[in-house]
């Protein structure tokens, strides 16, 4: 039997941006959130993980930056296998956009975006929240890029709408120019129109920079419209992997079967 390290390591010269091999995650309460998940994501792809609640989407994303540990299997980012030793360096290349935005309520927009450098900046800079000019300028550029204006810089999170907050979350994710962005249900708490705006922003910003995006979604229509590729999951396993136009009705039905979302989603 080949060791997982060999499977995850260099597969020739051209390794994919992300490589997952045989991921299994069993929580202490016995729930199996991931069950032998294996796939690669090439550089620059906008890859959507589709599935109902509890299908293991979040767990999959969180294994990549160490928020959740794996029971077995391995992950490689740009050919570097994820190990406790390499975790820090991987975390700096992988940014995350969260479902609940996970911004600091009592910090303003600029400070929230600049907090993306928390692991990189000198400690005294973090302590005083005093970042170098280049970073401040970059934060401003990003805040402008995500569609906010100068007036928003010193606004606190609580004063912004959900859509604006997620824009800030996206700006924070892009701050250190990551190779990969993990978006965990980035639009789940937004209304449908705002969801499209935010996903468009995320996809376009990623394309401009060649950033690979791994985005979990539970809305089929959004997945079909935005994904370069859809990976559908159910009960911790992949049940479909391909281009959006290859996704047929019966597959969709099986994704949401018995999940209560069945009718509404298939009808959509």
């Amino acid at each position, binding site marked *: 039997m080949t060791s997982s390290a060999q499977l995850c390591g260099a597969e020739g010269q051209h390794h994919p941006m992300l490589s997952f091999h045989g991921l299994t995650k069993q929580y202490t309460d016995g729930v199996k959130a991931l069950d032998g998940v294996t796939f690669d994501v090439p550089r620059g792809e906008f890859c959507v993980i589709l599935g109902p609640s509890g299908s293991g989407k979040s767990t999959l994303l969180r294994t990549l930056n160490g928020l959740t540990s794996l029971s077995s299997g391995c992950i490689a980012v740009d050919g570097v296998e994820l190990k406790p030793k390499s975790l820090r360096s991987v975390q*700096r290349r992988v940014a*995350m956009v969260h479902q609940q935005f*996970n911004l*600091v309520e*009592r910090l303003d927009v600029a400070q929230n975006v600049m*907090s993306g450098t*928390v*692991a990189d900046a000198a*400690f005294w800079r973090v302590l005083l929240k005093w970042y170098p000019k280049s970073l401040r300028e970059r934060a401003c550029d990003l805040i402008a890029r995500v569609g906010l204006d100068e007036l928003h810089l010193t606004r606190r999170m609580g004063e912004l709408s959900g859509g604006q907050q997620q824009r800030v979350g996206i700006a924070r994710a892009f701050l250190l120019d990551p190779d990969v962005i993990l978006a965990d249900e980035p639009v789940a708490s937004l209304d449908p129109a705002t969801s499209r705006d935010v996903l468009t922003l995320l996809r376009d910003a990623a394309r401009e920079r060649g950033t690979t995006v791994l985005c979990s979604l539970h809305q089929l229509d959004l997945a079909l419209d935005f994904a370069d590729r859809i990976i559908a999951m159910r009960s911790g396993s992949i049940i479909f992997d391909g281009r959006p136009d290859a996704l047929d009705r019966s597959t969709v039905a099986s994704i949401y079967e018995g999940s209560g979302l069945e009718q509404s989603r298939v009808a959509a």
Partner: protein
Amino acid sequence: MDMSNPPRPSLERRREINWHLPAPYTWRTLVLLIAVAGLLLVSARRVDIDKFLALSAEAIAAQLGLRESSQVGRGLARIGKDLFPITLSYRTDVSRVADFDEAKLPWLAYVETVEHREYRMNPDTTKLEETVSPKKVMVEPLGYLTLTVGKMIETIEIAIWATILAVLLSIPLAYLGAANYTPNRAIYAIARGTVSLLRAIPELISALFLVLAFGFGPVAGFLALGLHGAGFLGKFYAEDIEAADKKPQDALRALGASKVRVLRLAVLPQVMPSYIAYTLYILDRNVRMATVIGLVGAGGIGQELKGRYDLFEYGNVGTILVVIFVTVFVLDQISARLRARLIA
């Protein structure tokens, strides 16, 4: 039967659902209430609540003219008579002022000649005789008030330094005593234990011992208050760290940030308003406690109060009490405004 008219769901039909909706109170609640009331009655006897009621009733009756006088009324009247008028001036025997020069008196001061009465034994008759001699006294009209205010400022300084000490000590204690940031269980237990211990020792008791260690004066006072405050702040700071919203912390952890950095950027902004509130409360409390702590010799206005009280100089005690009252009142207003300003 008319099929186009489906049977309406009636109340009768609902009875088929055999749910049990528990009553908000049961007989157990009643038993518990009776038991608590019984215990309170027993306890009331022990703390002389009955005596308090009897004396208060007597005082009210005296006020209404139903009784000639009351014990409480007499007591209060005596306090009033002793404390007021308060002593604002400072009188010094001229003969006791070093290098006294009537042309160079301190500001506002004047010299008063008083009759000095003295009983002396006449060696011829071996009887006490009253002799009257004129005596010059230097009077500084606001001398004692100035001295008291100076002591009050010293008291506030003790309180401020005690608060600074409390904050400095409690920051590491809070970090080590927050379950989700502590390096390990043992350090957590030690930190929480220290915090409990610091809080468990009353300031007045620790001041008593610190006076033995550091001598009379403000050092013992500010240490006693600071240590107690650290016990309070350490506990509340730590609990706020534990209760802070986890989502922003997750986000920064995902970027590979160390615990201290996450604490700084994701936790501190969240807990800052309540930290300011706790700290201002401790400052407020320290000012009040610093006035008391002087009673055991730990500096500040309390030491002056104790001295005057022991000399039966109740007029001076009155001045001190008025100054304390005014100070606490003014500081209350200031801290309320500060709070409103800082917690925005």
